[in-house]
């Protein structure tokens, strides 16, 4: 029940706020799905370093979460999303997308299977009408439960060590699997998932136990320099990992004003998720048409750009003349020492004609922008994929 006086606070504090607020030295907060979310804690570079060197903690609470339960949950999710949900065993997690009838991507997200008939769908955007309308004919219930779960993302090469020090042995936990452990009189769910492309875990618990979890984790993690991070540092890591964010790297189909802004899974490089052999799923017919008539207009690619000036928001040209694409995310990557970007390119400039690509960058040099035209080449994503990400059992660091 939402209180009538909710309007006195537009952005809610998450259950971890009593801990994160005093640590946020610059009071750097942004809005994420109606919540206060730290963009940084005062030193983005050190926060980023914690992700790649030790152990970092990111407050995931605002992520939109839908619980899907019922005897037809698998059939429903198979109809809704492009991936094969039947293959996702209880205790498993997979990344997936779902499309509208025209085969355009509505959102991406992670699907957690807690039980035979019990799923949690985590995503960036809100979809309750779409998700409930899609239940027609299925014995299934969909509930938005964002605020009933507190979640932390624990990421970095030492995170298995931190969890071990906290008393939770996750050495046998493989990527995209979950385990449940008792904690603080309740159950803590630990999933080996994350948004950094590194070794990492996500921890899920009832909001009442959030602070106990935080304290326990920070005590256990102290030897590894555990520190909270904001979304700026996380964004650096996720670009290196080549992950997409709805609303930043693509416009969700239900939000696009311009009809040419929507993208199919093919156009986002996500067609590998599609299970063509399962029964009908939403957008399937349109996607088959697109595949057979080679109607895809765009490609989503990784770019390696000359020089060291980050190319955020830049336009891409062929032979310095013809505009053929645009960049949605970019950074000078500290870990790979490359100037990286995620870009949308018109076909065929992502393949047959990809040899002569140039990026127009406005470089800020002492209050004055200087226009650069620098060469770029397509490079595989993820840009950074260390062995420790998948190693089971994970290393100590």
């Amino acid at each position, binding site marked *: 029940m*939402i209180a*009538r*006086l*909710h*309007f*006195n606070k*537009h*952005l809610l504090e998450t259950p971890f706020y009593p801990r994160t607020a005093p640590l946020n030295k610059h009071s750097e907060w942004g*809005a994420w*799905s*109606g919540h206060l979310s730290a963009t940084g804690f005062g030193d983005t570079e050190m926060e980023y370093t914690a992700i790649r060197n030790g152990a970092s903690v990111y407050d995931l609470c605002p992520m939109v979460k839908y619980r899907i339960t019922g005897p037809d949950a698998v059939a429903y999710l198979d109809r809704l999303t492009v991936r094969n949900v039947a293959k996702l065993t209880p205790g498993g997690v997979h990344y997936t997308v779902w499309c509208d009838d*025209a085969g355009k991507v509505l959102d991406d997200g992670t699907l957690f299977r807690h039980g035979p008939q019990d799923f949690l769908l985590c995503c960036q955007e*809100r*979809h*309750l*009408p779409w998700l*409930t309308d899609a239940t027609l004919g299925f014995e299934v219930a969909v509930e*938005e439960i964002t605020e009933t779960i507190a979640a932390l993302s624990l990421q970095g090469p030492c995170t298995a060590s931190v969890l071990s020090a906290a008393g939770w042995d996750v050495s046998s936990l493989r990527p995209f699997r979950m385990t449940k452990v008792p904690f603080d009189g309740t159950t803590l769910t630990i999933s080996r998932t994350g948004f950094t492309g590194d070794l990492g875990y996500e921890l899920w618990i009832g909001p009442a136990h959030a602070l106990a979890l935080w304290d326990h984790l920070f005590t256990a993690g102290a030897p590894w320099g555990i520190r909270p991070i904001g979304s700026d540092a996380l964004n650096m890591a996720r670009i290196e990992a080549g992950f997409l964010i709805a609303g930043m790297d693509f416009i969700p189909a*239900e*939000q*696009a*004003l311009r*009809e040419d802004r929507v993208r199919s899974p093919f156009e986002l490089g996500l067609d590998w998720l599609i299970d063509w052999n399962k029964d009908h799923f939403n957008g399937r017919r349109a996607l088959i048409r697109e595949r057979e008539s080679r109607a895809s207009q765009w490609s989503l690619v990784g770019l390696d750009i000359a020089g060291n000036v980050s190319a955020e928001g830049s336009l891409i040209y062929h032979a310095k003349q013809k505009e053929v694409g645009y960049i949605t995310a970019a950074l000078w990557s500290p870990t790979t020492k490359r100037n990286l970007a995620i870009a949308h390119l018109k076909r065929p400039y992502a393949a047959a004609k990809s040899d002569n690509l140039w990026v127009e960058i406005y470089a800020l040099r002492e209050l004055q922008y200087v226009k650069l035209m620098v060469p770029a080449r397509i490079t595989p994503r993820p840009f950074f994929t260390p062995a420790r990400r998948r190693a089971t059992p994970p290393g100590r660091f």
Partner: protein
Amino acid sequence: MTCDALIIGAGHNGLVTACYLARAGMKVTVAEKNDWIGGAAVSRELYPGFTYSNCSYVCSLFRPEIMRDLELPRYGLQILPYEGGVVFMENGDYLGMFRDHDANRREFARHSPRDAEAYDRYSRDIMRHCRFIRPLLMRTPPDPSSFKPRDLSELAYLGRKAMELSEVQISDMIRFWTMSISDFLDGYFESPVIKAYLAVSAIIGTALGPMSPGSAYVLLHHYMGDVDGNVGAWGFARGGMGAITQALKASLEASGGTIKAGHGVEKVLVRNGRAVGVELDNGETLHATRVISNMDVRRTFLKHVAADELPSDFVRQVKRFKTRGSSGKLNIALDAAPKFTALPEGAPNLRGDLHFTDTVERMERAYDDWKSGHFTRDPFQDVMIPTMIDPTMTPPGKHFMSCFVQYAPPRIEGRDWTDADRDAFGQACVNQINRFAPGFKDLILHMEVRTPRELEAEVGLTEGNIFQGELTFDQLLFNRPVPGYAQYRSPIKALWMCGSSTHPGGGVMGAPGRNAAAEILRDARMGIDMSDAYAVL
């Protein structure tokens, strides 16, 4: 003495036309029947120390391109966005609207979690329709029966715009233009009060109910404006709606134009099929190279132009042009801010539109009363207290309240309104507010009640229709006001139209006045810099 352009009526459109023509170098005179100027965009002191926006009361549609071209900010125009809005419900609860996206979502979720997450797609779809229609506001509609290169190229422009749409969007658009707002909202929402709030824009000023086909388009008309790029947002003109026409007056006078207020035009003088001036109600004659009427099309041609000067087919169509009035207005000076029991202390919603009708069905029942020739006892009101934001209109702590009321028919069971009818109408509205804000009645220092009768007599709006003609699809674009005369010209040479009876219609938009000026200047082979329509997002 002959002027280059004589404009009948100092409403906002007449003044917009006057300003553009004066800036292009024409000698311009505006004749106004009232002692004051402004038409329906007017601020008046009807109670000492209180400024009333006693006709139109909010601003969104007035085109920023015009404000900029005519330097209206320099002449004092300031638009203030307003905050929030609320529907008071019969069960004691309320639905608030909030400018903050998350606050608004949570408020919707109080009434329906599903609707809370449906609002974004609804807004997106409305915005898509806006993006198609809005660029047409600032263009002269093509004559589809003409082979003139200009008409053909304008038709081709429309065709190209339509071709850019997918099949899905074309069918969405045709449905949207023709369906009722009630049906449209049912496609997105389940909560009755959310639908009731959103249906409002579709019935304001319109002799349609929320269940009448065609009402969805009227909603779009009200969403096409913006406050500084915030599309669909509404605001107040600082100092009341008269601030718009006062700024236009100052801009006009700075370019050498003059306004003659106090005497109405009795008739348009026509010689050899050409307008040559006007005769005022005091017998004075004003000669002009061209006459431009800001009066509605029925008033202009049925009352002020000799019928024998007009083609009978044109007269027949003008007579059939629908100007059915549907609304009335209460303007109230308040001793203090009313206290609405349902609303928590500190809620920002009083700084927006206040409604008391919590279902679409109740709105439709009120429309039923209109159809049978009665004003309704359960009125739908769009109430504003601009002084919650604008400090210039009343002494501190006092307030001006504007109540726009539907439905009020132009005539009561076929007879004219009487003063007793008017007072009973006003009382029904006050009683409704008092139910949600006990003690409200005691705060009233002065009240003006306007029915369609008063709107016609004073502002000159035939049958009290606030849009100078209904915004139904049969009366839009190249059919507004009548087919063959949608390009601001009339059957009489040198007699032009610039009011809201012409494309794109009413709502204190200024676009008809601006488009008419563009046509007049083109005809006179005079150039002037006019901003093209700004993009929508």
